[in-house]
């Protein structure tokens, strides 16, 4: 029983990410409405961000900002132990990814808006119907 609980605790973050990823992918593949597809894409992105950030976590580690007293009293690399701080790299990558995600979301929404102005609909089958009749 205890073994199973520790197994769940060790892998739960990956399961969450897989479930979110599949929710996003499902919306992107199956949904008919373009805005719903975009929402699916955002959920997909969020899943990836969650995956990266959870990979950087270390048991008992603190945020990756070097402690104040260590920063002032004789800063040598010997005094700072990497095991005390969580991994900063995923944070850096996801920090930029979030902002770029918002910017690309803006582009996606403006494309959807342009499609709506052109075809009067955001439903994929209706747009296809109109494209065939041209």
């Amino acid at each position: 029983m205890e073994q199973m609980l520790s197994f769940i605790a060790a892998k739960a973050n990956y399961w969450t990410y897989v479930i979110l990823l599949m929710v996003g992918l499902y919306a992107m593949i199956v949904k008919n409405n373009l805005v719903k597809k975009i929402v699916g894409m955002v959920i997909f992105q969020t899943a990836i961000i969650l995956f990266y950030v959870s990979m950087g976590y270390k048991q008992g580690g603190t945020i990756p900002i070097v402690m104040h007293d260590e920063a002032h009293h004789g800063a040598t690399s010997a005094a700072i132990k990497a095991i005390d701080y969580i991994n900063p790299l995923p944070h850096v990558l996801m920090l930029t990814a979030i902002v770029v995600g918002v910017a690309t979301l803006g582009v996606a929404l403006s494309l959807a808006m342009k499609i709506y102005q052109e075809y009067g609909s955001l439903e994929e089958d209706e747009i296809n119907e109109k494209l065939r009749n041209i």
Partner: protein
Amino acid sequence: MKILGKITILLCGSLLLFFTSDFPDFGDANSPASLHLSPYFIEHTLEDTAVPNVVTSVLADYRGYDTMFETTVILTAGLACFLLLRIPKRAVKNRYYLHEPTGVTLRFEGDKYPQESDVFKRIDSSWVPYDIIINFTCRLLIHFIQIFALYVVAHGHHSPGGGFQGGVVLGASVILFAISGNLRAAIKRFGEKTAALFSATGVFIYAGTAALCMVLGENFIDYAALAPILGSDRIMARSHGIFIVEIGVAVAVMAVMIWIYYNLSSAGKQDEGL
């Protein structure tokens, strides 16, 4: 189509779930991701850059190229929104005006409409009266939001923060102003040309600082070359260089967020928004 999609999702999901058993445990300090580069960054950030916040030093110094081109991506996204949506100003079908002393609203059709003045105000077609609570609260909050944003940018060396976060908060303050009042009032204060200029300036500050380092005889994005200009030693010069670059990022991100909002909320007309 729906069944096919569901089968694909189930197959893909079960495969991913099956292979999670090979992944390192949650919170494992010896996972491969934490073994190679990140210990170096954590242990040497003070020696190399004098910045305690490892995320900031990795963002702007160790991985400077990445961040520079992310800023370029954001600028490109803003430009793409502008080129896709923006249509030149043309006469809107109906303009609504409010005469404040009497509270009468008038509708004008076609090209003829009166001059705007203090008592005779143009309003959106979806205008709702008596939004004094929203207006007052937002006006009160916007100053504090902007000061907090400047703090986040300036204090990114010692606490969680930096250019991206501060820029987004700054942009959000202007967007809040546009939502609480109307779009035209926001554009009057932070125009579209200003937004375009600022977003380009931010990228230019970043790329320019990086190129200046090369001119001064070091590698691209090695801020140590700025030491004679900034009047500090080489390590502190890296810290100051990171700060300059973060300001560039903040300016670019703020302007692009506002620019995208202007174009999206008004479908490119920039006349009546949300």
